[in-house]
């Protein structure tokens, strides 16, 4: 007989092309194939997303992995478990006001750098990359970190800063409009980290393991689909989620993310990535305490799914 359609409530932290595989999975019917119906809500901000999950307002949350560490550091009876990775690098780009021909990170020294706000993954990854390239973000340059995520682009456009760390599609828009030039990718520089991950409560994974598996399988299908198809096809597939963005722009962005392998190729969140994340957090002084991979990550499901 036909299996009953199961409804899964997903809370995403923001609506972004960065999460393209998720939209592909919905649009291309991968969830449906698994007998899942997705009820997707945007709950802007990691706190709201996590609150929705914790208070049973959502079954699955798509949010930065660091949030699960923050939560678990404060102790929780029913911990939040990462079970399927969606993106595996940082998603921001370094945009310069002036055209730079032979860019080297040293050029940042002495400049004014408009970074992301403190405490969030983009800021931590940003500082990590700067340090990795031999720049002390608090001494070698003027670091502006006081602006809300949604307003950073405005601040840069109205004249603040020489360099800015921007998300897509803003970075591409700026390049297109001649307001700035993308000169480096923080994603490429940061290496693989669990950036955005699907999470659920431990109890959910235990009680509805097969549902979680179906969910992960759908995600995995979408991940493969994205890499098997052109950026143009992906852009077309997800366009209905970004009604007011040019198809061309979506394509550019998808292409950029695909090239630097920001979209995870499979849902497995391995130990190395996990530790990389914790290192970055530690460097930024935001890691409340080190938490082992197996206590917050469930790789079984993902492994199960990818095996077949």
């Amino acid at each position, binding site marked *: 007989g036909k299996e009953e359609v199961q409804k899964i409530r997903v809370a995403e932290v923001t609506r972004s092309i960065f999460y393209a595989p998720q939209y592909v999975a919905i649009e291309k019917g991968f969830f449906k194939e698994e007998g899942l119906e997705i009820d997707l*809500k945007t*709950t*802007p901000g990691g*706190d*709201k997303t996590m609150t929705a999950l914790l208070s049973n307002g959502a079954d699955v949350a798509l949010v930065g992995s660091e949030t699960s560490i923050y939560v678990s550091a404060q102790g929780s009876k029913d911990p939040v478990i990462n079970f399927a990775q969606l993106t595996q690098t940082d998603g921001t780009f370094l945009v310069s006001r002036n055209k730079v021909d032979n860019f080297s990170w040293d050029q940042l020294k002495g400049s004014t750098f408009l970074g992301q706000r403190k405490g969030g993954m983009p800021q931590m990854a940003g500082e990590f990359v700067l340090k990795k390239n031999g720049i002390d973000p608090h001494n070698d340059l003027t670091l502006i970190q006081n602006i809300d995520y949604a307003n950073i682009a*405005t601040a840069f456009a109205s004249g603040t800063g020489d360099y800015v760390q921007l998300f897509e599609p803003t970075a591409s828009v700026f390049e297109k409009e001649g307001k700035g030039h993308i000169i480096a990718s923080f994603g490429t520089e940061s290496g693989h980290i669990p950036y955005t991950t699907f999470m659920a409560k431990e109890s959910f994974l235990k009680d509805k393991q097969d549902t979680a598996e179906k969910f992960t399988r759908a995600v995995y299908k979408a991940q493969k689909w994205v890499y098997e198809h052109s950026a143009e096809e992906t852009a077309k597939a997800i366009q209905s989620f970004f009604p007011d963005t040019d198809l061309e722009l979506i394509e550019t962005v998808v292409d950029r993310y695909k090239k630097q392998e920001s979209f995870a190729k499979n849902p497995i969140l391995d130990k190395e990535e996990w530790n990389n994340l914790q290192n970055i957090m530690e460097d930024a002084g935001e890691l409340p305490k080190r938490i082992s991979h197996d206590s917050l990550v469930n790789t079984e499901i993902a492994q199960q799914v990818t095996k077949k």
Partner: protein
Amino acid sequence: MKSKSTHIEQLHKQYIESLIREKRIVRTYQLFIFAFFFSVWELSSRLEWVDPLIFSSPSKIIELLLTKIQDGSIFTHIGYTVFETILGFILGTLSGTLLAAILWWSPLVSKVLDPYLVILNAMPKVALGPILIVALGPGFTSIIAMGAIISVIITTIVVYTSFREVDPNYMKVLQTFGASRFVCFKEAILPACFPTIISTLKVNVGLSWVGVIVGEFLVSQQGLGYLIIYGFQVFNFSLVLMSLLIIAVFATIMYQLVEYLERKMIKSSNQ
């Protein structure tokens, strides 16, 4: 005598005409301000006095609006937000007035609660988002609650103040007829405060919009607030400003409705 009464009729006609004339002047000025504002905006955007990327321009916004009207999507967004706002507005106003009535009813309660009202009033309601999500779930109800919460305390304070300022002699008149405190409230306090309540209503129309939009910032997949947040996300300021303009239009419509209500209800103000 006949000629006299027609003379008066004539004067009366003149009087009414002068009222109409004044209204026409007011409308003209308003239109002028409207036209001036939008043409200056368009111009300074075209001539790049302001950054067209951030400030967009009226023509771009209209263009965007037209495509959204064609595909019909804008109506869903408007529908959601308007519905939420109306509910939030009604809830906020009713419960605010009710609270004010309770405070008026019991001077002790009002004295005791006074500082707590202040504190609640000073709470940045936006920060209550997570608590709302826990209490009401990430959905519709949270948004409506935000629309109500943002106006309820201010309504309570303003309406209660006006309740207290009613000349106590009106109550005395009723008390001599053996009226209970409830009757006094219904016959003297409440109608005496209608002008204030209506003017609070007018303020609340605005606040409810703010509340619902902020609510849609918290959780949503539809609505004008969602469009704003999304517009920021994809750096499409035409979308943001279009949504703001639509909000302005609908807020004005709601305001006009409240004014209409005002004219209907406060009959005695027919000066």
